[in-house]
């Protein structure tokens, strides 16, 4: 393992300190319990709190700011944060209209947020994201994983909350976007959890992991490395199949997010975008919004994910509204 770090145990604190220093105009940070909150506190609005294991940067701390999250609770690398973090964050940012938790669907995250809400003195609701359509036809029962689609939920619900909408409406929009969003990832290499010091999985030069999770969890299948068009073709097919399975329209306006998993250069991400956009357009979709870059990473994994969100006027409007965070910024 070769990384810029001093001491594995201090890595997260040092990195978060750097984040807070680099964005001191936007956020405040607190340690023990650890959370990142907007510098400018909100007033009389539903506050959005997200969190999850670290290693997915800029998710979630990078999405704290105007028009998006009010606070984020970073856990240890790939380990969901703990209830005391979420309670402290809620206490710090609550603005009189309740707390909406945005939680990626993993056993650990769900249980920690659940225990939080059992202790929380404020009105609250939770949007559970589960956009990863990697695993199909399985007998699993805990449901799909939340991956890069979470960014779209955080952006749009953040926008709605900014208008003063109530908790139920915010949750409803989040749930709607989650249903209308499908993602799938493919890895060329493993990630390396710093404290583990070695790659999570072994993969040879001529293999890829199709349907990989953002923690390096194995996906659909290990398959032969092929040309980008073939890989992206399979990813698009999985997404289209998922949209069909959800009985949603396979035409109309969409947002296409090509997300890098950490070590894949923009040149490749744009190449993937090129193929994905062509295939989706042929299928009958109309790509009206795009995002290409590292938005939900898996530490240092070489790989990428595709996310398609079926837009409607409401989602589009909230996607377009001003946002000012470390990781996403436009309109202001």
């Amino acid at each position, binding site marked *: 393992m070769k990384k810029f770090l001093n001491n594995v145990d201090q890595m997260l604190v040092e990195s978060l300190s750097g984040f807070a220093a680099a964005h001191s105009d936007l956020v405040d940070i607190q340690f023990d*319990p650890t959370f990142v909150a907007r510098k400018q506190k909100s007033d009389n609005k539903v506050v959005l709190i997200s969190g999850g*294991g670290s290693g997915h940067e800029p998710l979630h701390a990078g999405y704290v700011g105007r028009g998006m999250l009010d606070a984020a609770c970073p*856990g*240890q*690398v*790939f*380990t*969901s*944060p*703990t*209830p*005391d*973090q979420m309670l402290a964050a809620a206490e710090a940012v609550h603005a009189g209209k309740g707390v909406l938790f945005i939680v990626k669907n*993993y*056993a*650990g995250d769900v*249980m*920690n947020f*659940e*225990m939080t809400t059992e202790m929380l003195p404020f009105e609250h609701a939770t949007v559970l994201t589960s956009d*990863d359509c*990697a*695993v199909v*036809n*399985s*007998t*699993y*029962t*805990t449901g*799909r*994983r939340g991956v890069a689609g979470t960014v779209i939920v955080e952006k749009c619900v953040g926008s709605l909350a900014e208008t003063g909408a109530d908790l139920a409406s915010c949750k409803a929009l989040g749930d709607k976007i989650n249903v209308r969003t499908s993602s799938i990832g493919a890895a060329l290499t493993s990630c390396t*959890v710093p*404290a*583990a010091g070695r790659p*999570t*999985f072994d993969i040879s030069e001529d293999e890829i992991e199709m349907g990989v*999770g953002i*923690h*390096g*969890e*194995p*996906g659909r*299948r290990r398959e032969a490395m092929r040309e980008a068009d073939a890989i992206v073709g399979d990813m698009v097919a999985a997404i289209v199949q998922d949209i069909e399975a959800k009985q949603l329209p396979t035409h109309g306006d969409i947002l296409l997010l090509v997300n890098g998993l950490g070590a894949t250069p923009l040149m490749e991400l744009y190449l993937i975008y090129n193929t994905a956009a062509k295939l989706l357009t042929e299928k009958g979709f109309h790509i009206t919004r795009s995002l290409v870059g590292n938005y939900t990473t898996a530490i240092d994994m070489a790989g990428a994910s595709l996310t398609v969100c079926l837009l409607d006027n409401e989602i589009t409007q909230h996607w377009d509204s001003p946002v000012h965070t470390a990781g996403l910024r436009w309109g202001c």
Partner: protein
Amino acid sequence: MNSHTISLYAAAIRHAILDHEADIECLDREIGDGDHYINMKRGCEVIASMTDELTALSAADALNKIGMKLLSTIGGASGPLFASFFMSMSKTLKGSETLNTLQMALAFEAGVQAIMQRGKAQAGEKTMLDVLIPVANTFKQMAEQDKSSQEIATALKQVASTGLESTRNMLATKGRASGLGERAIGHLDAGAKSCEVMIHAVCDAVLIS
């Protein structure tokens, strides 16, 4: 059992977990996300740092304190599960001073039930419960039959190992490995492994004393 014994067991558990770093880490890498050993270690270290504080408390209060501390320290799936285990044990033992074997067995059973509730999981789903449920059952049975601590400890080690081994050919239907379908088959569950290691550590401590 009292809070002093609890601290001794915690120390034994910590040593055992550190000793099994390679196995535990490897299992969570294979069908998980590779952090389970680190999570367990973080939990063990924080409890070790609390020895003085814990020994000043009643057994029930010490267990509750352990649960609370694990809840704010471990994170991930195992954090809330182990926290629920200890907090529920504590609730069951509330009021009792030194504890007999049956009280311990019943408290352990309550702890395991708390895990089942928190995780919405049963036996056979390829989780730590595949070690914990059979251990809880045997523990209670043998305690009701008034078996000696030595006999019980010896039996529970065996049951834990069998439970761990049983996860090998299961499909995972809970936790992170549940996304893997058939690909999880052939691998032991990491949480089951760390439970087996911990149970062995405590039983060995009982057998030595």
